[in-house]
C-alpha cells in the first residue's frame, strides 16, 4: 500500500501532466497507485518514481490527455440526459397537473385580456433569464470554495435556456411595436403563448432540480473535497 505522501505525489503528478480536474484525478490516482503497486511487487528493487514513470509510459504518447477529452464529452452528454429525464418526468401523472394548471390558467387570463401576455411573457422570461445564470454562478462559487476544479460542472447546455428565448423574434419587438400581436391571430397567439410559457416554466423547474441534483452528487461523490467547507 502506498503512503499518504506517495498518493499526494500522484495527485501532483496528474496536475503537472495536464489533468487539473479533481473528478478526473480521483480515478486516475487510484489507477496509477494500483499499477505502481503491481510494478513494485514484481520488482522489489524499483523505486516509486521509476515505477510511476513506467506506468505513465503505458498510457501512450497522448498521455492523460485522452482521458480528459473523453470525460469532457461524457459529462456534457450526461448532464444533458440528466436534465432531459427530469424534464420528461414532469409530464408524468400527477406532476403533469402543474403543466395543465399553468396552461389553463394562462389561457383563461389571456382570453380575458390579450394584453396580459406582455407582462406574463416578460416576467417568465426575465425570471428564467436571470435565475439560471445566477444559480449556475452560485453553484460554481460553491464548488470553487473547495479549492478544486471539477470537470463535472460543465453545464454549458444551460445557456440555451436563457439565451434562446430572448432571441425569439418578438421579445424585444414586443416593446418597440406590437408586431407580435398584429402578426398572429388571437386564436393562435393565446393558446400558443399559454403552452410556450408553461413549458418554459416547467423547464426552469426541471433545470433547478437538475442543478441541485448535480450539487448533491458532488457532495456525495467528492465528500473529501467538500468536507473543507462543510
Amino acid at each position, binding site marked *: *500500500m*502506498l*503512503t*499518504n505522501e506517495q*498518493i499526494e505525489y500522484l495527485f501532483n503528478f496528474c496536475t503537472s501532466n495536464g489533468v487539473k480536474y479533481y473528478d478526473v484525478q*480521483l*480515478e486516475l*490516482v*487510484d*489507477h496509477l*497507485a*494500483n*499499477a505502481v503497486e*503491481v510494478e513494485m511487487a514484481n520488482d522489489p528493487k524499483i523505486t516509486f518514481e521509476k515505477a510511476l514513470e513506467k506506468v505513465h509510459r*503505458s*498510457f*501512450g504518447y*497522448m498521455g492523460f490527455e*485522452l*482521458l480528459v*477529452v*473523453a*470525460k469532457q*464529452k*461524457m*459529462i456534457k*452528454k*450526461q448532464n444533458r*440526459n440528466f436534465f432531459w429525464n427530469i424534464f420528461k418526468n414532469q409530464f408524468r401523472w400527477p406532476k403533469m397537473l402543474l403543466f395543465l394548471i399553468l396552461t389553463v390558467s394562462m389561457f383563461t387570463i389571456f382570453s380575458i385580456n390579450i394584453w396580459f401576455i406582455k407582462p406574463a411573457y416578460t416576467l417568465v422570461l426575465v425570471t428564467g433569464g436571470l435565475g439560471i445564470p445566477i444559480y449556475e454562478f452560485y453553484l460554481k462559487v460553491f464548488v470553487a470554495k473547495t479549492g478544486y476544479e471539477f470537470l463535472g460542472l460543465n453545464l454549458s447546455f444551460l445557456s440555451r435556456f436563457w439565451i434562446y428565448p430572448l432571441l425569439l423574434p418578438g421579445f424585444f419587438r414586443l416593446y418597440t411595436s406590437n408586431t407580435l400581436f398584429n402578426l398572429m391571430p388571437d386564436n393562435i397567439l393565446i393558446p400558443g403563448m399559454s403552452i410556450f410559457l408553461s413549458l418554459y416554466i416547467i423547464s426552469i423547474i426541471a433545470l433547478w432540480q437538475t442543478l441541485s441534483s448535480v450539487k448533491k452528487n458532488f457532495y*456525495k*461523490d467528492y465528500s*473529501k473535497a467538500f468536507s473543507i467547507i462543510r
Partner: protein
Amino acid sequence: MKKSSLYKGCLEPIIMQLLKDNGRMYGFEITQKVKDLTRGELKITEGALYPLLHRLEAEGLLEVTMENIGNRVRKYYSLTKTGKKETVGSMKEVQSFVETLQILFNPKLA
C-alpha cells in the same frame, strides 16, 4: 496486422460481459482481469478503457459507486438494468460475428 486493432471493436462487449460476471469492478481491475483471463494475449490500454467506461456511463449502461480505500478513493463500475439487457444483445452479436469469421476463414466448417 496489429492484434489490438482486431480486438478493438469487441472491447465493449468484453467489458460488459466481465461486469456481468463479476458484479462491480474498477478500471485497473478490469485491465488485470482481461490480461489474466487471456493469459496476456489481450492487454487493454488505459487510453482505450477509460473513455469507453465513461461513454457507457453517459449512455446509462453503467453506473458508478465511489468507495474509500485506505488513503484513496476507488470508482466501481457496474451494469445498470439497461446495461444488463444490452449485454445479452451484444453477446449474441459477437457470437454471430465469430461464426461469420469462421465461415470466411474455414469454409469446410460451413
